[in-house]
């Protein structure tokens, strides 16, 4: 019906509205952009000398920067969950549900806003990385690949976060459901090579989605071949994205739960 024909323009309308919210209440954005930079400064500036010994052959900033660029996505999850939960339990979204609008467009507006928010955060983080002396060798194609992979991961993870937010019954639950994504980077190859970890943790770190994605970005930015790791990274992103999308659309199609 008509609502499907308009799914793209409706999602764009919802995106414009969400961006207005973002501009009008910049505090959350500032806190969010600050988090990965804080982590970057802690690991590179404070622990960098000690941790650098675990990464022979490269400077520590060269090791950590690609990872920190990616985990700007992880740090955005709580904000996205907060926005989605508070919005979908509000009167305005009840009104939208009684209008002839594709429900995917309502969620899509949040996903696109999250993508833009993550991009801004990643760009600011990149500037700090460059100021700390980071230089990439991967050239234009390396950057292009990095942008594509970070965006793909952001899109995929955001759909899963949207689903988690919709499955929650309270705002606290919605935000705490997604906290795991903030801790996941610390159990990956983001800050130290996985072979320096105790065996069990090392196995976990090797087999969780962030590690292959981070390794692929490292390879892209260093200008070295990523090989099969890239395929594993893409498979993780596709899997997370499809599962998140299907789950989110199904949850949003149900009758709203009175909060």
């Amino acid at each position, binding site marked *: 019906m008509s609502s499907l024909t*308009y799914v793209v323009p409706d999602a764009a309308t919802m995106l414009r*509205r969400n961006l207005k919210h973002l501009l009008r209440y910049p505090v959350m954005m500032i806190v969010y952009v600050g988090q990965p930079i804080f982590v970057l400064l802690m690991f590179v500036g404070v622990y960098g000398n000690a941790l650098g010994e675990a990464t022979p052959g490269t400077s520590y900033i060269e090791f950590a920067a690609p990872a920190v660029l990616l985990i700007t996505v992880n740090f955005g999850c709580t904000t996205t969950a907060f926005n989605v939960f508070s919005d979908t339990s509000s009167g305005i979204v009840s009104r939208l549900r*009684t209008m002839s609008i594709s429900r995917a467009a309502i969620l899509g507006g949040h996903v696109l806003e999250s993508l833009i928010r993550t991009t801004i955060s990643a760009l600011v983080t990149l500037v700090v990385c460059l100021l700390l002396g980071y230089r990439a060798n991967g050239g234009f194609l390396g950057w292009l690949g990095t942008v594509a992979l970070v965006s793909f991961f952001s899109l995929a993870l955001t759909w899963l976060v949207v689903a988690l937010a919709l499955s929650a019954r309270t705002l606290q639950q919605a935000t705490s459901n997604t906290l795991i994504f903030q801790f996941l980077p610390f159990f990956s190859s983001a800050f130290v090579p996985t072979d320096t970890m105790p065996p069990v943790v090392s196995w976990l770190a090797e087999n969780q989605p962030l590690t292959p994605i981070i390794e692929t970005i490292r390879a892209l930015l260093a200008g070295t071949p990523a090989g099969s790791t890239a395929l594993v990274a893409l498979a993780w992103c596709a899997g997370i994205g499809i599962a998140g999308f299907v789950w989110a659309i199904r949850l949003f199609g149900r009758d*709203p739960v009175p909060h």
Partner: protein
Amino acid sequence: MTNRSPMAIVASGLRKAFGDHVVLDGIDVAVGPGKVYAMLGPNGAGKTTVVNILTTLLTADAGTVVIAGHDVATDGDAARAAIGVTGQLSAVDNLLTGRENLQLMADLRHLRKKEGRERVQQLLEHFDLVDAAGKLLSTYSLGMRRRLDLAMTLVGEPRIIFLDEPTTGLDPRSRRTMWELIRSLADGGVTIFLTTQYLEEADELADWIAVLDGGRLVAEGTSDALKQRVPGGHIRLQFADAEALAAAAEHFAGATADEEALTLSVPSDGRPDDVRSALDRLERAGIELGGLSMHTPDLDDVFFALTGNGAKASATTDSLERAAQ
């Protein structure tokens, strides 16, 4: 238009339970095009659940809903395209300005740019929101929010509108303004489904009133027809003590005495002669009268007669609250 049904809104056998709690226990609704239908009931009667089901926000456990000829179960999108909804909780975006809220609706209704801007301006003027148009909603009063809420509903010029308790919590003046706005819509031929806990509101606005209590419709009809279902009016005589009341009761056959309130209710259809004759009789008997009031039947009587005690208690509280305002 695929308007197969002559009715704007038809629902039959609606049932809904949340867990073990049965909220609607078989509700039938039929609203003709251009009519104003009021569903009247105390808090918790299930009014909002009815609106949520009719507007496709909730799915009924049983029963069918057809809006403008479209069955919501099979063609929800077409049904949604035909309606506008103003909810009990403000369905407005608190983080936007009044104008932005209306513009959002214009964009989602896919009005062309110029057309949308004109419609928004026109609604701001009609709803007396021009001065507040550029302000965030956090600065709006409840009355302004309700007006904006209704204006947002009207952006797409729907022919069927649902208003869930549109005046609850408003001061008397804002309530009057809302009534005028609703009446002007009805004059324009818009079908209106309204819920309210105020008898006066149903009486003022509706062509047809249905009384919802405990998940069932306990009565429906025109305001006049419902009023005829309760005993007629009376003159209420107030006395200073029980002796005077007892003495007076002997002079009025057919009257009912309330010994606690020290009042005597004398049946009357409100003619001045009834009052004169009552006063004459008391004077001749030398009985001193403390006070006198006329009581004509209104929807309150209907409501109390038809709904349960719980409903009576809450409706009385509402009347008291309104009296206090």
